[in-house]
């Protein structure tokens, strides 16, 4: 006799109909083991149905969704503080990472200017960092800041060379 263990969950979920349901019921009539399994599976199924959903402390998401869809202008403050907690965490992490990058890059530049061997030949750090000169990935203000840095390096080099 082939047991119907694999159909029991569908049976108690009400997903079987017609011949398939009749076949399972016919088997159950003559199989105490499968009947016990149906009882146990049904208890588990009903227990799962009593699971409660944790209450959300926040209200409707509509104001936030509205702001992101129907284009209500957000102020600078809302841009950050109106974002979800995880988004804010992400932004804060990005800011810290950017700060660390600056902390790493700037000392390399000053080593170069002081003639300390930074592992790169003279001028090469500017050449090898040529991706920096493609400043399209930066905003307008940031680009201006980068130009200032490069100009400062040029002036120092001129000073060293004279």
């Amino acid at each position: 006799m082939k047991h119907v263990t694999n159909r029991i969950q569908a049976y108690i979920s009400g997903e079987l109909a017609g011949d398939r349901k009749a076949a399972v019921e016919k088997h159950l009539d003559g199989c105490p083991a499968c009947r016990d399994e149906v009882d146990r599976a049904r208890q588990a199924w009903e227990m799962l149905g009593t699971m409660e959903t944790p209450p959300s402390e926040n209200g409707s998401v509509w104001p936030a969704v509205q702001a992101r869809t129907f284009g209500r202008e957000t102020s600078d403050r809302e841009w950050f503080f109106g974002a979800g907690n995880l988004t804010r965490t992400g932004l804060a992490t990005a800011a810290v990472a950017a700060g660390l990058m600056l902390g790493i890059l700037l000392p390399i530049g000053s080593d170069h200017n002081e003639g300390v061997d930074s592992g790169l030949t003279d001028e090469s750090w500017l050449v090898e960092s040529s991706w920096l000169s493609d400043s399209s990935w930066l905003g307008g203000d940031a680009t201006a800041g980068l130009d200032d840095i490069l100009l400062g390096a040029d002036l120092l080099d001129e000073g060293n060379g004279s």
Partner: protein
Amino acid sequence: MPRTMDDDALMIRTAEGEEAAFRLLVQRWERDVLSFLIHMLGSIEEAEDLVQDTFVQVFKKAGSYQATGMFKSWLFRIAGNLARSRLRRRKVLRWVRFDPVVHDMGDAGRGPDGDLEHSQRQEAVRAALGRLPQRQREALALHRFQGMRYKEVAEAMGTTVPGVESLIQRAMAALREDLAGKGDQL
């Protein structure tokens, strides 16, 4: 705007840019989506973030929605995709956890004697749910907690009805085994 308007009609109006229709859709479904995402992610905070993202996606894709009466499956497909993406990212960052604290729920109206036993059992079941493989958990959450038929679950998960049947069968077997191993009966 009549509150009884069906989801397909609301989606058509949303695609035409009618804010009131979209608002009605969001308010009609946000609770169910939140519940599903909590079961998927095990974190209320993350779930709330993704509820927003889900409805933003619904709005963006409204123009391509086919009004065939399967809005619920379509909606939960979007929510499921976002949840899976979030879980993948968690895995990469090795943040995998199932924080019992975020699942601590109120037991209003229950007597003091029943409080502890009830909440402990709920907690044990939630933790066991969190240990299920992702697709089993998704199928079970959609079927048991959202009341979706196998056909709707299959539509939402991009699989077949027999596939859903298998996922749910295995999920329930694993849950029972997990809880039996911890001296709890499901």
